């Protein structure tokens, strides 16, 4: 056991010694770069309970996911596509309920 440890250490040291030299010869300048980012809704669920489309997708009436097809949370913390829950709430006046838990539907204050 001791022997292996010693050997590893030695090997490690060798690389460290060589490293600065190698690095100098590989030097280059970055001329261009582009960043890649991903986003996701923090909805604690995968899909909208009304249209069954993924939250990271959009409702059936929209073409592009994102700010144009946002999510909306109820006071009960259930989330839906804004367009989906609006359709449901408008069809259920005067006392709409959450499709998931049947509590009176209130939009969550941000």
């Amino acid at each position, binding site marked *: 056991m001791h022997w292996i440890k010693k050997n590893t250490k030695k090997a490690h040291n060798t690389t460290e010694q060589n490293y600065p030299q190698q690095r100098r010869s590989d030097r280059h300048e970055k001329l261009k770069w582009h960043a890649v980012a991903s986003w996701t809704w923090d909805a604690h669920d995968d899909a909208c309970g009304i*249209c069954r489309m993924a939250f990271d997708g959009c409702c*059936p009436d929209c073409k592009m996911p994102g700010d144009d097809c946002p999510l909306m949370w109820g006071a009960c913390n259930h989330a839906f596509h804004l367009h989906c829950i609006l359709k*449901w709430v408008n*069809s259920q006046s005067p006392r709409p309920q959450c499709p998931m838990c049947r509590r009176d539907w209130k939009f969550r204050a941000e």
Partner: protein
Amino acid sequence: MLDVSRVQKELVEIKRDEKLSGVSIEISEGDLTRMRGTIGGPHGTPYEGGVFIVDIQLPSAYPFEPPKMQFVTKVWHPNISSQNGAICLDILKDQWSPALTLKTALLSLQALLSTPEPDDPQDAVVAQQYLRDYATFMGTARYWTESFAKRGALGIKEKLVKLVEMGFSEDTARVALENCGGDENAALEKLCGG
């Protein structure tokens, strides 16, 4: 406009575990608004062993409006019309939610078969019988399952003919069959025994 993509997703989901769930759906001739659901009769009920067909129509506002469901197979049950198969179930009416699906609705119908609600009847005659003469209700429900919800098995008419051929009168044979829920062997035993 009907939410086609949701309906297609639902159909895939139902197909995925139709053996386990005991409910399935077929579309009629490529028309997504018209389907046929099937429900296996729950164990430990007079509907056990039967396969019940339900006609399903999707309104254009589905899933914001409930699907229209009606039994095609004749059923003897307090909450299902013995005349036309109309169903009295709150989630198919005012308690519908777009979070429910065709599958959960069919499973609810299966649960309704297990737990009749005679105090909120669709068929008053059946409900009265359920409340006043439970034994007769069970017999009739079993008999209807046997006669209308069993494919492949001998129909009740054939069973009756068989018993008549054995020398029993048609009336006594029919009564015996009805009392035994359509079970021809039990009926025969009864006829021979008493």
